[in-house]
């Protein structure tokens, strides 16, 4: 199927649910304004099913209705996994064979972000979802710098540890903090190290858009539900250039 529509209870009905607040008091005009917005979003008919004043200046709305847009799944751009998913054994064997040394990985939460659970899930032995983290891989040498690491410290440590890859986590996204921090980080590495000497730059976090890697100046982005094995497989692929 390439062209699809949203599905409520019948093929092709196009039904969706929408909710939002408008900064206007609740009255008929406000309800009309809510429907206007839904119409502009392509909902027609748009059924206003709930309107609730929140204080004197705001109104919350729930709208149901049919959306007229078509979705063309052929047009969808996704970052497909373009490398094979390896077992820990394969990862270790490939690094040994190709690199003839341990692959050095430095990880951190940068900026003011202190959400380490995600990067720990990738790096620490304990891992996530039943998979062990990168520390488990005998041929990976892992340095986990923890939270709220400054970019200069990160660059310094990466240099010291001769990092093949730098793994950065960003969870706080309010005011695009994650994007700003990532840009600052990639710029610092570009400045500090010549192209051939730069480690692979990887960022991860639940609210990144995987398609933005180039824009942010990093090599790869990982998002919700990433597992350590995927990251290890990618490292092997990108650094040893091997497909197995």
């Amino acid at each position, binding site marked *: 199927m390439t062209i699809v529509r949203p*599905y*409520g209870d019948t093929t092709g009905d196009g039904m969706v649910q929408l*909710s939002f607040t408008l900064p206007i008091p609740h009255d008929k005009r406000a309800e009309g304004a809510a429907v206007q917005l839904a119409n502009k979003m392509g909902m027609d008919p748009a059924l206003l*099913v709930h309107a609730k004043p929140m204080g004197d200046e705001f109104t919350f709305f*729930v709208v149901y209705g049919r959306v007229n847009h078509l979705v063309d799944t052929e047009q969808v751009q996704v970052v497909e996994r373009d490398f094979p998913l390896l077992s820990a054994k394969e990862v270790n064997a490939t690094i040994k064979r190709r690199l003839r040394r341990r692959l050095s990985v430095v990880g951190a939460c940068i900026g003011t972000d202190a959400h380490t659970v995600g990067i720990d899930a990738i790096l620490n032995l304990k891992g996530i979802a039943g998979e062990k983290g990168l520390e488990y891989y005998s041929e990976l040498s892992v340095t986990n710098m923890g939270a709220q690491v400054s970019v200069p410290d990160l660059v310094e440590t990466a240099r010291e540890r001769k990092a093949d890859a730098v793994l950065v986590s960003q969870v706080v996204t309010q005011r695009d903090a994650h994007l700003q921090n990532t840009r600052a980080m990639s710029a610092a590495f570009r400045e500090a190290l010549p192209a051939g000497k730069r480690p692979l730059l990887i960022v991860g976090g639940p609210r990144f858009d995987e398609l933005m890697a180039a824009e942010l100046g990093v090599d790869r982005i990982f998002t919700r539900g990433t597992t350590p094995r995927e990251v290890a497989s990618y490292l092997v692929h990108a650094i040893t250039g091997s497909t197995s």
Partner: protein
Amino acid sequence: MASKLDLDPRVVRAARRLAARAGQPVVDLARSHTTVSVERAVLRLAGVHGADQDGIPWVNRLVDAVRADVGLGHGVAVPVFHAMRSTGVDDVTVLAQKAAAGAVRFDVPGKKADAATARRAAARATGRGLKIVDRRRAERDRLIKRLGDPRQRPWIYLIVATGDIYEDIPQAQAAARAGADVIAVIRSTGQSLLDYVPEGATREGFAGTYATQENFRLMRAALDETSKELGRYVRLTNYASGLCMPEIAALAGMERLDMMLNDSMYGILFRDINPIRTFVDQRFSRQVHARAGIIINTGEDNYLTTADAVEAAHTVTVSQLLNEFFAHEAGLADWQLGLGHAFEINPEVPESFRLELAHALLARELFPDAPLKWMPPTKHMTGDVFRGNLLDGFFNLVGALTGQGILLVGMMTEAVVTPWLSDRDIALQNVRYVLTGAGNLHEDFVPAPGGFIQQRAHAVLGEAVELLEKIVDDSLLTAIAEGTFGIMKRPADRGKGLDGVARHDDDYYNPVTVALEEAP
């Protein structure tokens, strides 16, 4: 479950006795009348099937023809099977077609022997129909034995309502895979007032799909497949309600439906069907359900959509007691009584949740061996779907805390649309969370002795007894006429379908009733 309400067994016994006294006159009425739909059900069991080119079933054409010639008071069985012999037609459907063309004249045989022959022929024919019902029941037992029942109580009951049987089927299968134990196919809005059962597979219902024999068959077959896939027998529900209640009961028996919505008063109150018509149809349909091993679901929950759930709580109890009496009288066993009640108290009312608990426990303890059908909030659902999902969660919790047997899964979009696929998924996730996390919390739920919950339950039971006393004095038909249930006033001489009712003549004969009443 140990008693949590400390109900006085003498009061409970008194309530049951009063319900029997209030119900008996209605039973007497039902035993002395027949209806066009009862007679059509007899013919369906006798093997008449199909419809004319306008979609009017041959059973309707045949009953109309018999009625025109000799009236309904004798029952159609004897005139029809007498005509079979006299015309030499040996297929009842063919006879119906001929009758519709005006080519057959019906009469009641004057000779005793002819009458006896016709009776025997009729009994043989309907016996074959009942055999099908029996075979289906045995088949169900076998499948349950092989595939197993749901692992948990309450059973999870989900509705599909697209209006199109071919959309319903994948949705029902998806629902079963997602965890539903029972699938109900809601009927199109118009059907209950049709005085015939539509034919064939249908795709054009409004807010529900027509109940037809073919739709029953298609859905049951699909769910049989899914049951096998899941290793758990998935039950199918429809509605034996409206003007064709007896026929739909017969079709349900023959197509192995597992549960049927079937209430003694719903049609009267919410479809304005004549009370006598309803009570007569009602009794016959329940006898068929008893034979088919079908669990009935009664409709007390509906009262709380028109009346206030706190004020009218005792009317639910009274109706449950009446439904129980009528059901037992028609041969249904306790395990077949999915008596209805609902979570419909205004959530703004202080202590609403404890009141719900009190009412739900009262039903549970009054009918300890009945599965009970626990209905979700509908009236106080709004377009605020976030709040809706929350209320449904607390509804599920009451279900788990009070040991309800059948949990009709509430949808967050109740006030918006008939359920979407995703609504069901969200709703099932809700049920699963509550049952997994708090399924055994009833062990720690002990209403304070003499506290709010016990007091409320005792008060409701007390009001129910008072109301029953009044009904015994004034008669149930009067109570219905006065708007006792769901504030709907329905006099006995009004409402749809009254012209389809006939008093039994002395020689009234109905081979199906005979067979059903003589069975153990």
